[in-house]
């Protein structure tokens, strides 16, 4: 796979922790893996949102169902603390 050298600004403490965690693999390899994981998560989230938008466009959710869902998701976020 082609690689490219880039200059980015990161928190100093995070860099030190990453260096320690990466060990002999090296910082570049560690940061590359973390970036791949983040991209994968963001892409999955975007792909599911796109599917939900398509479904909603062809089959709309009634307002009362949306209101019930909003209460449930709010409870979940509160329970998980996010």
């Amino acid at each position, binding site marked *: 796979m082609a690689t490219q050298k880039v200059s980015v600004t990161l928190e100093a403490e995070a860099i030190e922790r990453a260096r320690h965690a990466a060990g002999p693999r090296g910082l570049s390899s560690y940061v590359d893996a973390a970036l791949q994981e983040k991209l994968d*998560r963001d892409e*999955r*989230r975007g*792909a*599911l*949102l*796109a*599917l*939900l938008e398509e*479904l*909603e466009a062809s*089959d709309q*959710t*009634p307002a009362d*169902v*949306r209101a*019930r*869902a*909003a209460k*449930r*998701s*709010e409870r*979940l*976020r509160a*329970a*998980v*603390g*996010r």
Partner: protein
Amino acid sequence: MTEPVIVLDTGAIDQVVTNKEFRAILEDLLRSGWTPIIPTPVLAEAITGRAADGAANQAIGRIGTTVTDEPLARHAGALRYEAARAAGRRAPSGIDAIVAAHAASAGAGVVFTSDPGDLRRLLVTSPGVRVERP
């Protein structure tokens, strides 16, 4: 800190397409930055190989599945053993344990499943993870 996860277990995957209330919940959580996961082994229970899999296949086609690597599988084994030991009864299924391990390793999130009992036992030491029906 990674984002909370939304782990889809058996009985929840097809509901992504067919259950409007569940769709709206997912949309809210996704817009809050939560990440969806379908652990690959869940397909062994969620898929029949028949035409009835259409809704589940639609969701899987978009989200894909997340591989269970060796550390996660070992974590699943430990959760399964502890759940059986604590309750003094049969161990939950290996697939339920894998689902629980994916959620527990994220530290925060929700497992959506049609059968919450065993997953709640498996996740009793993960207070940041909820187990819900779709």
